[in-house]
């Protein structure tokens, strides 16, 4: 697998760069299909509409189907609910790490010597890694034995590939302390996850599982060749506690037999003791695990030599001749051969290269250090014992050992999907400078973003495609410097506005990230939706929130037209409530302030008609004058206003307007006559003689008031 041909792949859909995978798209329609339609839904779900060619014969046939295709690159190993739990759970570790990274970055600006990769940075990364890992399943060990049943050697948890992959990366990149004892980490790793390979081929784990089934029915266990074979295999991969437990099931331990089989039992016990005393190059062992730990290499080497000498001594011992039970003698000596590092035995007893690889670390090359020699050894083992089928975990491990970060990324992406890549990048960049450079370099081919950002964008799109997870996408998008906000804006724009709770959530996100123009657009859409769907009040409310002057002015116009039609109209009461709701915030819309005055004016006119006279009439005149003086009053309303006021202008008892006021109105009328000559003038819906009757009324009033004032 070359980096060039895999490293370029950025999407989880493809297996190979050149040949695209063809997936079936099941629609369940009878052929013939006439046409397809496509549309991206939120995130990266694609909706395909399949149209059927209509046939003459049947009446009630289906004409087509709309099918949704999810492109999130997830396999079926983890259920939807479990996946959402992981997605939600990983938000806070991710966000915490980002904020720590930001404070580290600002610190390093102050003192240029501090790099985020020094000091305690990796401890934060390890903490993050442990948090993520704990989401992927409980820490369980397959080889842990149960006390209750001496014959149960294996527990049966269900480890996940996701967790196995995460732990690999944690060991190699995040946990600096484990660098000195990587081979032993791999021994533990295989002990936990060997069962994952069982689905495609035989493994030591599957052998043990099979044998466990037979165990209950076996009378004389040491006569059974499988007993010895399974023990040897388990020993080869270092599952010492299981081997010792199985050895102690040997018949010679039974009280009634001890007398006759003393030597035999001594040999079994000697081997069991040697196994449990095996020196291990590691700081510590979990409770229940066997072996003696050494932190320093010289101590380990010394202990190792001594241990091997003891095995060699036992091997040459004369006691073997006195052992009457043939199977026991052969089985035990085989086990000694394993511990002495007999390549042929190890090769036969292990089932695939990873097991052989572990056996090499344990018995042949216990002093292996450095990725280069680990990689070389892996290559050798792959040649000797290839896997029956390629496995995504193995692809990842080879990438890690080969120190090819591009392969690691590609394997993560291909094998485990966008969630994995996005979160693993934090670990990769902390553990490798090569990864750091590769992932943070801005690329023209990607439109100027880095690979890190690209993967986060892809993951955010996956989150966006589900109504239950889109709300966490902003966390990832805001960590993208260049294109995250752009995608966030698109995501928010594509949320439906017709559900109030969703709308409020949407606006809350806008407020949080200061996306004012997006939020005003969303409110505009909500306003229009409500306005057009009969909820005029909330329509106006949202348009006001959006400060959409253009639409509010149009609404004001509509209301004016409606109110102006006739004051007695039932419409008026309807609109009055609406105007009330608008309040009198002067800034929201000038037109609406005008409407407010207009309502007062209309009210006074109504009172005049209802019998209350001169006082109401004076008030109506006040309102009229203030309306006509107000620059917010649209010109096209002047004539309707004056026409409504004819009764006031022709007030019988005495003129209500003084000279100054009458002149003001006459001037307005003049201005209006000139404006009417312009082509864009909108004629009010009034009787044709409206203008002349107003002019006449004003002239009469001017005459009367002049006389009165003299």
């Amino acid at each position: 697998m070359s980096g060039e041909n895999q490293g370029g792949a950025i999407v989880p859909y493809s297996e190979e760069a050149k040949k695209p995978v063809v997936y079936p798209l099941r629609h369940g329609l009878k052929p013939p299909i006439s046409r397809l339609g496509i549309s991206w839904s939120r995130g990266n779900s694609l909706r395909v509409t399949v149209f059927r060619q209509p046939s003459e014969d049947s009446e009630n046939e289906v004409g087509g189907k709309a099918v949704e295709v999810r492109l999130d690159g997830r396999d079926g190993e983890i259920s939807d609910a479990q996946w959402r739990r992981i997605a939600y759970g990983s938000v806070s570790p991710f966000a915490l790490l980002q904020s720590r990274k930001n404070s580290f970055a600002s610190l390093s600006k102050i003192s240029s010597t501090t790099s985020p990769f020094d000091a305690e940075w990796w401890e934060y990364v390890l903490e993050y890694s442990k948090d993520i890992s704990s989401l992927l399943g409980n820490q369980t060990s397959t080889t842990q034995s149960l006390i209750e049943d001496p014959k149960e050697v294996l527990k049966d948890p269900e480890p996940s590939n996701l967790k196995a992959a995460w732990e690999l990366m944690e060991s190699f990149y995040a946990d600096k302390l484990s660098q000195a004892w990587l081979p032993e980490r791999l021994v533990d790793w295989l002990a936990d996850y060997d069962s994952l390979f069982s689905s495609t081929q035989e493994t030591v784990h599957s052998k043990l599982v099979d044998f466990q089934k037979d165990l209950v029915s076996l009378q004389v266990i040491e006569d059974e060749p499988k007993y010895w074979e399974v023990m040897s295999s388990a020993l080869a991969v270092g599952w010492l506690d299981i081997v010792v437990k199985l050895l102690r099931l040997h018949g010679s331990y039974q009280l009634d037999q001890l007398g006759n089989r003393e030597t035999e039992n001594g040999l079994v016990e000697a081997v069991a003791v040697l196994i449990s005393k095996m020196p291990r190059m590691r700081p510590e062992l979990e409770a229940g695990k066997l072996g003696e730990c050494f932190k320093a290499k010289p101590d380990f080497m010394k202990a190792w030599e001594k241990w091997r000498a003891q095995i060699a001594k036992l091997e040459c011992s004369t006691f073997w001749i006195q052992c009457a039970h043939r199977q026991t003698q052969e089985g035990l000596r085989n086990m000694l051969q394993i511990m002495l590092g007999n390549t042929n035995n190890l090769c036969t007893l292990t089932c695939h290269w990873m097991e052989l690889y572990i056996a090499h670390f344990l018995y042949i090359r216990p002093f292996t250090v450095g990725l280069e020699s680990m990689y070389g050894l892996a290559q050798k083992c792959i040649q000797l014992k290839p896997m029956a089928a390629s496995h995504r975990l193995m692809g990842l491990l080879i990438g890690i050992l080969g120190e090819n970060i591009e392969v690691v990324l590609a394997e993560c992406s291909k094998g485990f999907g966008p969630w994995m890549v996005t979160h693993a990048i934090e670990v990769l960049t902390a553990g490798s400078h090569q990864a750091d450079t590769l992932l943070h370099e801005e690329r023209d081919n990607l439109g100027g973003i880095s690979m890190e950002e690209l993967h986060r964008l892809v993951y955010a799109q996956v989150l966006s495609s589900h109504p239950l997870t889109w709300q966490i996408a902003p966390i990832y998008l805001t960590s993208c410097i260049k294109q995250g906000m752009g995608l966030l804006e698109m995501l928010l724009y594509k949320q439906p506005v017709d559900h109030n709770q969703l709308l409020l959530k949407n606006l809350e996100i806008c407020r949080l990230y200061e996306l004012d123009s997006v939020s005003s657009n969303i409110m505009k859409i909500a306003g229009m939706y409500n306005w057009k769907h009969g909820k005029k009040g909330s329509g106006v409310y949202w348009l006001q929130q959006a400060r959409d002057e253009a639409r509010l002015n149009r609404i004001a116009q509509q209301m004016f037209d409606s109110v102006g039609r006739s004051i007695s109209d039932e419409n008026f009461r309807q609109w009055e409530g609406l105007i009330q709701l608008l309040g009198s915030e002067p800034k929201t819309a000038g037109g609406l302030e005008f409407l407010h005055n207009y309502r007062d004016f209309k009210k006074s006119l109504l009172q005049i008609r209802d019998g209350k006279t001169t006082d109401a009439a004076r008030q109506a005149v006040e309102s009229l004058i203030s309306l006509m003086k107000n620059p917010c009053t649209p010109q096209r309303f002047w004539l309707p206003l004056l026409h409504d006021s004819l009764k006031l202008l022709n007030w019988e008892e005495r003129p209500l307007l003084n000279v100054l006021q009458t002149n003001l109105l006459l001037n307005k009328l003049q201005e209006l006559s000139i404006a009417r000559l312009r082509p864009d003038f909108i004629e009010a819906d009034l009787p044709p003689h409206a203008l002349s009757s107003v002019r006449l009324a004003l002239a009469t009033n001017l005459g009367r008031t002049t006389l009165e004032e003299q």
Partner: protein
Amino acid sequence: MDKAVATLDKGTTCSSWNYCGQRLATGSTDGTLSIFDSPDPSSSSFTCNLKTKVHAGAILKVVWVPPEFGDAVACICSDGSLLLWEEIVEDAQPLQWKLCKSFESTSTQVLDVQFGVSSTSLKLVAAYSDGHVKVYELLDPLILKNWQLQAEFQNAIDSVTMFRKASCISASISWNPQKGENQGSSFVLGFNSDTPQLNSSKVWEFDEAHNRWLPVAELALPEDRSDEVYAVAWALNIGRPYEVIAVATQKGIAIWHVGANPELDGRLSVEKVALLSGHGGEVWQMEWDMSGTTLATTGSDGMVRLWQSNLNGVWDEQAAFQPTA
């Protein structure tokens, strides 16, 4: 991985999802417009809640009006007319779908229509079978009834010559999807016609200062200019320094990079970065995803294909979907 979300009636010919993917509009051969909704936003199962006969003939294409202007669709009908239907509550009447505008044309047919939102107004571009393009502007943002013809031109760089006898089979329009206050209006348009000069895709931009539409880029190499265009698609841009536009002709799907700022002659710099072949014959439709990085296409081979650029800038087919029963 795939899940049926709606079942369509017999005779359905076209469909369109609204801005948030929560409503589906379909048109059929008997002129029925159907609207599908889902009971709540987290559900992905859509049922038909409304059927209304909008035309005597068939509906060929349905396009949603942008949500800032209400819930409305434009229907292109078999006689070449263009109808705007809107969901609205009027006075005391219940919610209903009403015809709010009919763009009739006697001699020519509407081939494609697309809406563009600028900061202040809604524009509608319609491409006609005689090779003409008409841009209408909505006068009142509250009512979809009053439209003003803002411009009429032909899809040619040379604006002087008129191609009188053009006969077009199809046209494809795609607006620059960019939203925002300072965004001018621009769209890309290509024809499938018998007049070579009209075919190639051109990017049209509105020149505010002179109140006219100008061709600012041509998305075809000199030797490909007469190629019939099946479909165009302008990618969303969430932060790239250049625009990406896909153009499908019988030679394949070309991916173009278009510069953001005009050069001295007022033109935008263009670069053809890939030519993708996959569908063999005609390309029916192309759609960019919300990040503007994945292009989905469908065509006469009956497949849906997904295209992406890799880290080296090389465009490849990433996956294909074969419809099966």
